[in-house]
């Protein structure tokens, strides 16, 4: 512990006790200048850095970290890291999950975690966190590098909102015109049928009239299906922007976008995302829609489960050489056996206020990208939704679509 304390003193600008001794040697002076240089470097780094003790307490924090979290100079020392990044100490946190699965303990993977940090005043903001286990002269400590990602997410959110608004307004317009175009033939059919019923009740029945009515009904039926056919073609024409896409980012973004939802629903999301999965050629907004939809469904599925058991596990792996596989597993009530396929049909819903379109749209999107989506009940509890997508940009299905 003595060495850590010395280091703390160095980092916070205090010289070691030995520096008071008279007769400073040249070696000592050179040592001091190294310490000074190191302190300047530590304080001026544009990245927030914490040194954490074995109990997760802050041993040292640089200026950037203090500014980022809104603390005064030296005020963070001794504070538990869970106060700053609540998820950090959570044993389910991906930070530790990755450590557990890591080949050599103590050496965390290079990847950064996207977590939510809390300022002194209570405001939450997104951060990217890199954690390094280290030992300093046999004292175990952890170094945490924190970067503010607010701007990135604000931008992302704006893009999302815009994409969503565009989609909603397009769909709204489409739905409006669809409603009107379909309503006309339906009106004519109903009035014709009811007129025919009345004519049939008369004596004698005016067969010529009834024949005309039946002809008109047939025509209006064709007209209604023509409207639907046109709408279907229009929907297909909606621009699909196909770009190489990192699925890990898509998943993390979706999880982040639902962060507040997850808090409100007291649901935890555990990510097991391998960054070595190659990119897929896909429309970002559409795949995000699929990811959001699967996550929200998982949240919904667990609404009746005790809060501490509400965990959604999201995994991304490479299946074979050419397929990326996303799995979204919930601990909910599972799916009715025999309905595993029906849930992907339009207007099928088990939710009291559901439209029954989420999974059907998701399936259209996944299939449009040459992939597959299906659901399985877990052996213990809940269900898992799988999405596979071809990786790379030059598969046949991509060619035919792009």
């Amino acid at each position: 512990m003595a060495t850590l304390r010395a280091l703390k003193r160095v980092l916070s600008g205090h010289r070691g006790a030995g520096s008071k001794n008279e007769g400073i040697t040249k070696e000592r002076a050179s040592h001091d200048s190294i310490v000074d240089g190191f302190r300047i470097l530590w304080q001026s780094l544009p990245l927030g850095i914490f040194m954490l003790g074995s109990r997760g307490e802050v041993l040292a924090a640089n200026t950037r970290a203090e500014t980022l979290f809104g603390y005064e100079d030296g005020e963070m020392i001794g504070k538990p890291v869970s106060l700053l990044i609540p998820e950090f100490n959570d044993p389910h946190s991906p930070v530790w999950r990755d450590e557990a699965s890591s080949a050599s303990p103590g050496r965390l993977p290079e990847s950064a975690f996207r977590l939510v940090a809390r300022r002194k005043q209570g405001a939450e903001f997104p951060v990217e966190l890199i954690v390094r286990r280290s030992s300093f002269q046999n004292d175990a400590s952890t170094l945490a590098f924190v970067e503010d990602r607010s701007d990135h997410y604000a931008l992302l959110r704006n893009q999302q909102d815009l994409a969503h608004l565009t989609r909603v307004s397009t769909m709204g317009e489409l739905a409006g015109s669809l409603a009107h175009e379909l309503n006309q033939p339906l009106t004519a059919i109903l009035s014709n049928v009811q007129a025919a019923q009345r004519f049939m009740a008369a004596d004698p029945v005016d067969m010529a009239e009834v024949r005309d009515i039946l002809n008109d009904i047939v025509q209006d039926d064709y007209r209604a299906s023509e409207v639907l056919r046109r709408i279907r073609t229009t929907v297909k024409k909606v621009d699909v922007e196909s770009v190489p896409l990192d699925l890990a980012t898509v998943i993390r973004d979706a999880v982040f976008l639902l962060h507040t939802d997850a808090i409100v629903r007291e649901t935890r999301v555990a990510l097991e995302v391998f960054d070595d999965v190659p990119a897929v050629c896909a429309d970002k907004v559409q795949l995000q829609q699929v990811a959001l939809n699967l996550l929200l469904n998982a949240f919904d599925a667990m609404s009746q489960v005790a809060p501490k058991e509400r965990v959604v596990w999201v995994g991304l792996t490479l299946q074979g050489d050419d397929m990326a596989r996303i799995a979204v597993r919930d601990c909910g009530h599972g799916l009715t056996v025999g309905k595993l396929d029906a849930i992907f049909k339009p207007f099928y819903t088990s939710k009291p206020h559901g439209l029954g379109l989420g999974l059907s749209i998701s399936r259209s999107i996944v299939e449009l990208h040459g992939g597959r989506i299906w659901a399985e009940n877990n052996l213990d509890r809940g269900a898992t939704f799988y999405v596979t997508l071809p990786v790379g940009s030059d598969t046949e299905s991509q060619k035919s679509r792009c």
Partner: protein
Amino acid sequence: MLEPETLVFVVDDDDSVRRALARLIRSAGHAVEVFASAREFLAEVDVDARPACLVLDVQLPDLDGLQLQRQLGATLPIIFLTGHGDICMTVHAMKAGATDFLTKPVCDTDLLKAIESALESANQRFASRCERDTLRQRFNRLTPREREVMALVVTGRLNKQVAGELGTAEKTIKAHRARVMTKMEVTSLAQLVHIADRGDIFSAGGTRRPA
């Protein structure tokens, strides 16, 4: 079945809907005339000719249903049909005197019930308009002097008083008054007062009413 001279107008720009509505209305025994636009309707129909009602689609090209309603005023009862029940639009139409506001697809009983009640009110309006027109014609047959006499008599003045006001003999007034009764086709003063109370007789005749 209602009185045979009633007529139902249908204005809808959709051929198929128009034809189907016309059939349905005909199946209930009403005479129907159809129009593809508000302008066509305005150009061809004399709304005063017979008791009638109008089944009117709200969404029409160039002149829409609500505009047509404004142009027609209160001349005939209107049943609106709309593809989507917009509350604001419904309120406007109802405030402007629409008989009913139905959404498409419209159920036959709803539509036919609305038509029955619209035609009933059209019949009343028509009868009252006919009566007014008859009275106005009779009133127009009166000479200016007779109109003056009538105006004073219906206020309850005696022949002598009328004579005094008009500066003539009571006997003359008595003769005028008898001619007024004959021309207005009434047998009692009470009937004459009743006619005069309708108000629109005098204004149409252009004669000043006594204060």
